[in-house]
């Protein structure tokens, strides 16, 4: 039995502890917002938050994720500690019509939330490096970058 703290709830799973977190989330908990893209941490489609850091769930064994105090998927990020940033990012994504196929966008959004939580006023360069690990095959990068800046502005105004 493996016990994980996912989206604010403790869950017990009867699975091989070597299973990547991605498949535990998807195949056992039905949290399908986290996507499989490459299985080798090249693309970032499987990005989740582990204790406030962006993590590639395809390459983290459940055994290691067990130590985490807080695992957040896109389904839970709007209720978590970073929910203000999460809503700002989500709304900016919608206003800018960022998505195309949308398959990578959960991961993009999860990475963007961490970027903004650590760098509230990102430069273009911060965005390029912060989002380097997330591939979008549809090529929506320009709008992702714009949306991150827009979310940063919205959060700034809120803080005032």
């Amino acid at each position, binding site marked *: 039995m493996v016990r994980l703290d996912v989206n604010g709830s403790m869950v017990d799973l009867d699975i091989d502890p070597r299973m990547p977190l991605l498949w535990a989330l*998807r195949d056992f908990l039905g949290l399908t917002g986290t996507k*499989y893209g*490459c299985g080798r941490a090249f693309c970032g*489609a499987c990005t989740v938050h582990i204790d406030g850091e962006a993590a590639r769930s395809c390459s983290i064994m459940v055994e290691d994720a067990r130590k985490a105090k807080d695992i957040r998927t896109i389904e839970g990020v709007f209720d978590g500690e970073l929910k203000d940033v999460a809503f700002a990012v989500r709304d900016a994504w919608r206003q800018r*019509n960022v*998505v195309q*196929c949308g398959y990578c966008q959960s991961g993009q*959004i999860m990475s963007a939330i961490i970027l903004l939580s650590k760098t509230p006023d990102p430069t273009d360069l911060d965005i*390029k490096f912060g989002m380097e690990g997330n591939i979008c*095959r549809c090529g929506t990068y320009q709008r992702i970058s714009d949306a991150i800046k827009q979310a940063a502005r919205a959060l700034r105004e809120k803080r005032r």
Partner: protein
Amino acid sequence: MSALVTSRRGFLCKVAATSGVFMLGASVPISRAQPQLHEPLRVFPYHPDIFLKIDLDAANDTRVTLICKHLEMGQGVVTGLATLIAEELDVAWNQMKFELAEAALSPRFRDQLLPLPPYVNLVYLLQATGGSTSTREAWTQMRQVGAAARAMLIAEAAKQWSVPAAEINVKDGKIIHGAKQQPLAKFAKDAMRNQLLPTEIKLKERPDWRLIGASEPLRRLDSEDKTDGTAQFAFDYPRRDASLRDRVLTVVVCRPNKFGARVPSSFSAGETLASLRKKFGDVVVDVKSLPSGIAIYAKHTWAAIEARKALKIDWDYGEAEPRSTEDIFEEYRGLFAETPASAEPGSIWQAENVGNATAALAGAKEENTVHADFMFPFLAHAPMEPLNCTVEPTPEGVKISSGCQMQTVDKLIAARELFGLNVNNLVPDLHDLSTRKWMEGARNFFGNLLGSAENVLSAVQNKITINTMLAGGSFGRRGTLSSDLITEACHAAKAIGGRTAIHLVRTREDDIQGGFYRPMVMHRVRAALTPDHRSIAGWRHQLASKSIFTEVTSIDIVDDAIRKIYIEGGFDKSTVEGVKDTPYAIENFEVLQYKPRPTSVPVTWWRSVGNSHTAFVMETIMDELAVLSGKGPFQFRRDLLPQERDRAVLDRVYKESQWATWPKDKGRGHGVAFHFSFETRVAMVAEVILGDPDKGKVVKVDRIVAAVDVGTAVNPDIVKAQVEGAVGFALSSVLRNQITLRDGVVQQSNFDDYEPTRMREMPQVEVHIIESPENEPPRPPTGIGEPPVPVVAPAIGNAIADALVSWGRKREWLHTLPFNYTTPLPEA
């Protein structure tokens, strides 16, 4: 709950009673290469409830759902088609929703007899999304649907309120008469039951458009669910809900590492299962041999993937492709030595022959001549969502859930593979119907339905449900003419008895190594200027490529569609699209297409199809000739483009990019390219920063300025998004992406060695849309999903050639893709 509004009145009898008064002409042209489709195709206004639902429970508001016949794979089609309906129905944009249509083969649909099966693409006459046809084929139909529904709702309200219909207006989903107003939903049920389709459907004039072409972007209809994790892709379907999650088996297939190899006859599924069970336990449920490889059935995805890694198979390589990439190019090069006179009959197709190119080139001076060989590798589509498909038993038959791009083909193949039904002779040759006597053909069609075909057709219809899911990209991969994914999924489902739900999963490695690539292509071009440098004296163009119509299922309606649209003289016309139908005026023009020997590497269309290589060849040669001519790249092209619309796109990009005033900085280069494809004109200017060529091949594509003529841009923001995205999509194939073979084995496997464009490489993209002239009727929309893709490579290639000069080098064009350039890390 939303109630479906259904007509109780047959459609056919109405047509018969009014002798064809419902027939409206609508031309659906496809491209300069496919002239037969310029002929008018008659489009019936379908009963609106096939394409839209009005939510009856929303008492105080109006919710209208588009039932979208096309696959949403990121191109924005649900937003586009909903715009057309909302425009004519006069509902507010935030009242629109969408769902993806169930595949339908029979024209008998919800008690109605229709002129065609309801969700067919009016260009292909199959249900299919592709060829950048969606908006243009549905442009008239969807507006008619909205307008017909509006007229019927008004007629019903007029009856209930006892007021003249002409005094009733519709606005933001409300029916309005004087001070009285009610939501559409109040009348929807009665209108669809009581009201006949209007005898005349009047569409809005352009000045009355609120949504079509609106400069304020409409919110994408698929945006909400795709930004909070709730959007359901095919990959998510079997695992989201516990009811299916706990019983579905994941299947991965271990396929041979060379194309054409087979499962060895000595293979024992039982022994393999026993050894996998010993290692992994009972999470591995079964092992079966399929035509495509060895299927492993496991209780969850990771177990299936891990179990496959443990397999060691000695494949039967008897019919496998043994060659390497270089061997295949060598073969192509050898073919070019042949001429139609010397070669075996049927091995060369003279796709174009105007004047006498050979004589003109022989007479041209060497200093006025350019010539080059161009090589293009296999390319994988690499959609972010790897291909996958769920097959689950239902009381009637099966439900197939996938990102289906050609639902008609998928459904027929499932019927054949799962139930052994003969799926030929079910549907008449619709392509003939479209161009011959329509009514007569349609009557025969309906007559046939009463015969034996109807039984099979209804068996197919009843047994198989195609559940089209959102697709995480496709770029052509989900629309193969063999339905390779659905076929394999059906085989896997059948092999374990058909009573277990299975989810066939392809990993990223399966995707990159699984074939169905953009084919390897070689071009050889020799072209020369006239002595006065004003025009092109001669152009001889040779091409070799495997036909993308090789891996095709044998179903008659598929064969018919391909034969009529894509094949000429036994050759695949898509290979020469963009060359044969070039918009440039070229005297003495010869295009020869060569047929290589068969190879078992499966190939298919890849976003922009033949244009993905032909535009690069045409536009780099044009650039070389432009420099030779001394006229410069814009003037030279302009002078050879007889059509005003073509020149207008070039002029726009010239102006918007401020081409004339660029500083000549060291390392900076500019290049232009223009191409016509899928009815759309695209010109791009690329600005690159080239590293010192003595220190390696390093380039940053800094900026792309694009001008596009799409006729009418239904959603300008989506048109822009498609251009921006096309640049991001194409860039990695310009810089580095290629699938290569060594002794038949694919050398790439994942995003490390087949790496899509990353954010830091993305140039700034500016998109300018040519407005449809106001003094003319609005031009019909043309394609946008594909047309920007082919323009990216030549614009960048021409810019690199230009940048070389700034480093004091001789101007030199790159003729082979990918360029194998890297992009420097950004500096602070």
